[in-house]
């Protein structure tokens, strides 16, 4: 699923943009260094192919409804991780610009969610390991399905994390995850099946494509990189899932303070530098108490700050209507002036 601008906060959006931009730069560098001139038109044309293929529907066997393929896994198998990431990113950019499929600010999130997981995690760590050096039909099918499922699960989890971290949607993490993951499990299996049929077809028709794809563009001789990536993934999973079970009992220090003073935390000074910094920290603390900002906190804040803003609500509504009307009138007037001047 594409992440949208409307559900995003600037902090999350710009962070993911920075990450994706960095990855694009990194992958561009890698592809350029590969010195394989053929890759460049291939990437462009395969991107266009993916774009076209995504618009062709297929019927899903059990349900009878139709779906379309994502294709990230397919590109990773055919192009290798770096080129595939760039191609996926380019397709997403075109979709965002021409079809508003995911917003412009959300591009960073989308490129990360739909590019990183198939190309850099599912492909090298799962697909290649299962395939080994001699692919055969059943190996391809199993490897593709598992890779697609894993890539989509992680992508879905990333969407949930980004949405919850942004705080625009009120869906709590647990409910959202419970919705997204099963759906994307089904989508992943179907995607895997479809990708597997295409890959098997290509393998039967022109096996040298598969061979050249397998032997080029390995992620590098550093085993360290794979290990690091696995750690990042593990950290994400641990943070996301295990924290559900985090204990709410006070830790050692808080317990000690509670025993001595009767409260779990000491209060700081009410004014001066301490209070100023505490205020700043309060505002920018991304995860106060290691929790996403609960909606009550935000509402409470809105109430306190908004006593002035939402106080007289009729005037607010009136003002809103007038503002909208003003905006459209200005546009209309400009258009009139332009047409009469022409």
């Amino acid at each position: 699923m594409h992440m949208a601008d409307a559900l995003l906060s600037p902090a999350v959006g710009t962070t993911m943009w920075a990450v994706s931009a960095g990855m694009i730069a990194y992958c561009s560098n890698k592809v350029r260094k590969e010195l394989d001139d053929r890759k460049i038109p291939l990437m462009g044309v395969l991107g266009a192919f993916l774009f076209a293929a995504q618009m062709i529907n297929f019927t899903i066997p059990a349900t009878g409804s139709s779906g379309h393929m994502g294709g990230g896994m397919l590109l990773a198998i055919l192009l290798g991780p770096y080129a595939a990431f760039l191609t996926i990113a380019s397709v997403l950019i075109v979709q965002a610009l021409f079809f508003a499929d995911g917003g412009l600010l959300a591009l960073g999130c989308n490129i990360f969610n739909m590019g990183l997981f198939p190309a850099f995690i599912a492909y090298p760590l799962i697909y290649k390991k299962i395939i080994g050096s001699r692919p055969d039909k059943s190996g391809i099918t199993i490897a593709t399905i598992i890779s697609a499922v894993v890539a989509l699960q992680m992508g879905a989890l990333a969407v949930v994390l980004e949405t919850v971290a942004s705080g625009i949607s009120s869906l709590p993490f647990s409910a959202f995850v419970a919705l997204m993951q099963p759906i994307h499990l089904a989508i992943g299996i179907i995607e895997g099946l479809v990708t597997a049929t295409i890959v098997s077809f290509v393998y039967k028709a022109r096996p040298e494509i598969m061979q050249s794809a397998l032997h080029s563009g390995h992620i590098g001789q550093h085993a360290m990189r794979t290990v690091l990536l696995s750690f990042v993934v593990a950290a994400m999973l641990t943070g996301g899932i295990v924290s559900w079970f985090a204990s709410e009992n006070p830790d050692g220090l808080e317990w000690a303070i509670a025993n001595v003073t009767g409260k779990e935390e000491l209060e700081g000074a009410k004014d001066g530098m301490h209070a100023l910094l505490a205020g700043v920290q309060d505002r920018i603390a991304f995860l106060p108490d290691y929790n996403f900002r609960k909606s009550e906190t935000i509402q409470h804040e809105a109430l306190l700050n908004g006593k002035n803003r939402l106080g007289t609500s009729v005037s607010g509504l009136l003002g809103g209507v007038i503002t909208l009307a003003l905006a459209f009138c200005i546009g209309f007037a400009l258009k009139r002036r332009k047409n009469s001047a022409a």
Partner: protein
Amino acid sequence: MSSIHNAVLDLRRLDLLANGDSSIHRLDARSKVLVTILFIFFVVSFKKQELGAILPYFIFPAVMLALSDLPLLFIVRKIAMICPFVLAVGIFNPLIDHEILVRIGPFGISGGWLSFFSIIVRSILTAGAGFILVGTTGFTAVCHALQRLGMPRLFAMQLLFLYRYIFVLTEEGSRVSRAREVRSFGKKGLGMKNFGSMVGYLLLRTWQRAERIHLAMLARGFTDEFHTRRTDRFGVQELIFVTAWSAIFLLFRLHNIPHIIGYQIAHILR
């Protein structure tokens, strides 16, 4: 007929609009990209339940559409096809968030509904900004602008190649899709195995095409450049454009204009 055909027509039309000639079209692409990004940034920077304060931002698409002669109905239709995922997630807000924040007479509007409408407004504004950018600038110019703003050259080339071949490949895809549709006797396609071989066949032809392109590139001594007709010039007009809109966006972010207006009017009427 097939949705692929309509999608490509849409693509073509939005791109052709960029060939228009208006004061907005003549601006340098970088200024338009910057202002669009700023616009989106400011629109999403509001807190969850702020609805009224975002409304003044409609002036940006209104003015841009008016000055650039983009067909209003076309853009509105494209915005109306907003990704349903946003709505599906947003609709949970009113279901979860029941605390009444605004009272109008006997009715109370909960924070959930406020945030839901806020999400809708954000979607409209951000999608609109994107379409206006493409409609007044064109994809190739946007790519060049991004490259001047720091994007790696290889990736810019990838985007331009992709764009150039989208039309060719969607044409092929649409032919294949229509052929299948005609043979399906009303069913939606012929099953997954058939899809696999169909798309696989398309893929093989694509691969061969890529090899031909590569040879053509070598034969013509292709270097990294894609040459365009328009030259880039960031001049006084662009500077005014960027600073004026930035100031307006900042103003709307810092002051809740609808509230001010409404308050004044309510004050006068009392």
